[in-house]
């Protein structure tokens, strides 16, 4: 162990933390944006109206069939063209993640809605509720409870996947490590530290999800 020099971690801590903050920011945007659009797309996937059902289904199948890395690259070149000016790597990455994750969250939302019995919908309609009211007050609150474990799992996946934004030069957590490494040449120590941080966050989240699931099982 004497060969390892851990002081490199302490010395560069502020720089690492800046990277970690960017990672958290990107994850937060990806998860909240992905969940918001995923909810709309998930509901659209259950529509009886073909003009709503088919575009949503094509969207989901398309993005679930592409590697995330490719989507990140693609939006990196596409976003400036659509916007008409360069918007920076964080915005490009955010757009890519939101679009990509929306496809995954949509499937979670769809399954969650389908887990609620048709009778609940009929009961709500029978009292004069509109579709939107039925979703908002009756179906989604129940579906959300069923979705929580899958949503947390997906959150963990998104958190890990933000490291892929490395390829477009975004200074997230992993990129900050490679920058420090290029200067300090302490690859083993640096990447061990980075790995440990990813591991702790993901492990805690998945334990949390397990606990929620057990609690829900007990409540039933």
């Amino acid at each position, binding site marked *: 162990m004497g060969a390892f020099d851990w002081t490199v971690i302490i010395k560069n801590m502020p720089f690492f933390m800046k990277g970690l903050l960017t990672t958290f920011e990107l994850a937060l945007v990806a998860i909240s944006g992905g969940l918001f659009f995923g909810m709309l797309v998930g509901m659209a996937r259950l529509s009886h109206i073909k003009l709503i059902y088919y575009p949503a289904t094509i969207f989901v199948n398309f993005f679930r069939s592409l590697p995330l890395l490719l989507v990140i690259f693609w939006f990196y070149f596409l976003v400036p063209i659509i916007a008409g000016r360069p918007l920076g790597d964080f915005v490009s990455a955010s757009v890519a993640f939101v679009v990509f994750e929306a496809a995954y969250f949509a499937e979670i939302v769809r399954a969650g809605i389908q887990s609620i019995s048709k009778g609940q919908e*009929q*009961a709500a309609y*029978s*009292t*004069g509720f509109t579709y939107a009211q039925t979703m908002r*007050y009756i179906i989604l609150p129940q579906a959300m409870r069923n979705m929580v474990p899958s949503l947390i799992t997906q959150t963990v996946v998104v958190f890990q996947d933000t490291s892929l934004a490395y390829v477009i030069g975004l200074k997230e957590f992993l990129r900050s490590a490679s920058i420090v490494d290029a200067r300090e040449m302490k690859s083993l120590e640096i990447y061990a530290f980075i790995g440990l941080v990813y591991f702790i966050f993901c492990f805690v989240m998945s334990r949390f999800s397990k606990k929620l699931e057990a609690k829900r099982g007990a409540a039933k």
Partner: protein
Amino acid sequence: MIKIINVSKWFGTHRVLNNINEEIHQGQVVVICGPSGSGKSTLLKSLNGLEPFQEGDIVVDGVSLKDPSTNLMQLRQKMGMVFQRFELYPHLKVIDNITIAPIKVKNIPKKQAEEKAVQLLERVGIPEQAQKYPGNLSGGQQQRVAIARALAMEPEIMLFDEPTSALDPEMIKEVLDVMIDLAKSGMTMAVVTHEMGFAREVADEIIFMDEGQIIERGTDKSFFSDPKTERAKDFLSKILI
């Protein structure tokens, strides 16, 4: 009040409703019975547009369900519905189950809706359950909450879809008593049920359905003492042990 005119419905190639004609007048209690799969529940759910049908028309208070300009949401406010499996909202307390539609659909102030809900819970005999969640109630209590929930919208017509079929025998009476009470107060009711005791006591008309058709109709007295068709005789002999 409700006119069913030549209604037919298919699931794929299977005809579940075959040329149904029927009229329900204000204050009438119509009991719909028949073997399972005969189309009773489908017919009941087509009355408030929960089940679409391909042919014919249903007219409620002069409003046609087939007319594309008809506002189904508005029409359903006149028609309360009670389901076989209760379908209370498990994430809401009993009181909120009852008040959510009046508050969200009719924009009634929360306090007023809650006062009304308490009155309704007293009417169905369980005012002490207001703050509980449906999961903590017995089946009979849940179904009485469901009746209160439907009544909270002050409907002109109540539809019951096998309201006692999912209940343990000792709880059937508490639900039927509430329904009998409601019938005697002058509520217009369409009830899919096999509870012939209920039919005897309050039904103005009994419809017997088989294979998507109404094959016999009569008053409670004529239907029980003198069924015309073999199928109805056979059915009655099976359920009136």
